[in-house]
Structure formats: structure tokens, C-alpha cells
């Protein structure tokens, strides 16, 4: 997966980190100290659409078959997350109880073209 630079062209992962202390959310979030809200951005030109290894979705597989057989798909390809991972969070709720929650698919690890 490509990591975006300052100028975005092809599908890549843009990293965005928010530190809870910076927004005073460390008052109620015990852990972790911040959140990586990465996201996918950029173009998916035809020659990248469904490239093996870039997009692992079922949609990519079907798309490849159509392309190989020369069927004009006339569809656009999108830049989407291909890998995500969970995030465990421990925080105070409004009753001052501590809650520990494992949130699935919270962090985008890599991006690809469908």
C-alpha cells in the first residue's frame, strides 16, 4: 500500500493521528493516548483497477476476470481500505465506571483499488 505524500495522485493511505491530550479527551479516555484515523485517498486509473495484491476484495477478483475477458466494465474503480485492525480502548463513562472495549476495524492499515 502506498503512503500518501503531500501531493496525492494514485490511491494511497493518508495518515492522520489525533492526540487525545490535544483535544482534552484524555480526561475521559484512559488508553490509548491517541487515535490513528488513517484514510484512503487518490485515483484508481483503469490499469490499477483490481490489481492483484492491491485490493483483496471479492469485488477485485470479479473485476479482474471481466477485464481479462475483455468485457468492458464501464465501471469506476475506487480507492478503499484493504486492511484494517481493531483498537482496544479504556475510558470512563458518564457514571465514572471504567469501560474497556475492543473496537473492530478501527484503524486503516492499507489501501487499494477495487
Amino acid at each position, binding site marked *: 500500500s502506498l503512503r500518501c505524500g503531500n501531493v496525492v495522485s494514485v490511491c494511497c493511505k493518508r495518515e492522520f493521528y489525533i492526540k487525545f491530550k490535544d483535544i482534552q479527551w484524555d480526561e475521559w479516555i484512559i488508553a490509548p493516548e491517541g487515535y490513528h*484515523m488513517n484514510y484512503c485517498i487518490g485515483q484508481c486509473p483503469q490499469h490499477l483497477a483490481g490489481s492483484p495484491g492491491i485490493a483483496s476484495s471479492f469485488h477485485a477478483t470479479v473485476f479482474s476476470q471481466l477485464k481479462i475477458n475483455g468485457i468492458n466494465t464501464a465501471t469506476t474503480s475506487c480507492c478503499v481500505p484493504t486492511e484494517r485492525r481493531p483498537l482496544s480502548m479504556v475510558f470512563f463513562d458518564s*457514571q465514572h465506571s471504567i469501560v*474497556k472495549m475492543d*473496537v473492530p476495524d478501527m484503524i486503516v492499515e492499507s489501501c487499494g483499488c477495487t
Partner: protein
Amino acid sequence: GSPSPSCVSCGLQAMDRDAEERLMTEIAKQQILEKLHLKERPNITHTVPRAALLTALRKLHSGRVRQDGTLELENNIPTKDPGYEIVSFADISEMESGEGASLTFQFLQERGQSIQVLESSLWIYVRSSEDPHRDSRLPARVFLSAVGEVSGSNRTLVIEKMLEVQDSNWHTFPITRTLQSFLDSGQRRLRLEVSCDEDGKNLCSLDGTANSAYQPFLVAKVRLRDDHSKHVLRKR
């Protein structure tokens, strides 16, 4: 034609870096609140004693506590339907009879939410007897008492255990079914009475004062029930 950093089809002007940062921060806030099933960020009015907090987190097995007291979490790979764990600290009041203390836990359930308790236990720090020749076994009882009643009256025995107390340490009391029936009843305050009586002296440390490392707390592993949605589906 000319490469333009803005989204031409959207007709938006290109954002400057600060404006983009602010927007992304707001999006991140909304995403975190949504994933944690919260409508808004909790308003913390008083801090939990740090020592009690660290003790509770250690019991949560939620990771390692670093030297500087911050928490390093183990990322558990959640099941399809991740549950979550709650640690609740008690408000403590002495029982008139002097027999022990009354612990009140507050729970707030969102309207329409139905919670399944997978397991729950009450953690109490029990001191060892000052008399070294004393029998190391100590009878301990936990009662569920009706909120608003005089402590000691109108209560039901939840669990009775014979504790083996060699030295001062934490002891747990399973209260899964008690907590489940309490949450199902829709009440907000769960009141438990604990007594660990030795010759009229209560050896359970029910010290809720600030900075107490031995503040009793309740741990619960819960999951949102999804049969509620199925029920709705059936209605359609």
C-alpha cells in the same frame, strides 16, 4: 486540464491546512463516539483515586501498566460481536448495624439497549486478622438490598463464602446473575451489603476515601444483546 488540488466535481474551494485539520479532528471525534456507542463525550466531574484505578485496570487484564503509570494495551482480536468490560467503583456508606458497609453502584443504560452479562464479580480487599493465632477462615456474605430501604432490612443473600485469609489480599464474589437481573429490571442503582465479621470486627476493607488503593469495585464483561433487532425484524 490544469491539475487542481480541490475536488472539481464537488465545487469546493481547496481547504487550507488548518481548516482541513479541524475538519478531520471533528470527523475523528464523531467516529470514536459512534464506535463506543456514546452520544457525547462523558463529563468527568471527579477523578477516581489513581491507586484504585491502576488496581482495577490490572484486574481487567487490559494490558501492562508502565512505570509512569500509563497503560499499554494488549490489542485483543475481538470476536464478531465484541463485548466490552466495565469496572465500576462503589459509593460506600456504613451500615447502621455496624455489621459492614453498603456499596452502591450506578449504571446508565441507553434507552432501548439490552445488555447481556457474560460474567461479573465483586472485588473486596480483605485484611488479615491481627490475632496471628486466629483461624484463617473468615465467613463473608454479600446481600442485595433494596435501594431506599434502611440498610440491613429487606435484603436477600446473594452469596456466602468462607474466605481463606492468610494475609491481606483481594477476594472476588461472583454476582453475574444478580447483575443480570438488576440490569433487566431497568433500575439505575445496585446496592450490595458486605460483611466479613470476626468477633464484631469487619475485616472487609470498604474504604471509599480518596486515594484509597483498596476501594471495592465491580468488574463485568457484557455484550449488547442483538435479539432486540431480530425482534424488530420479525415485526416487519
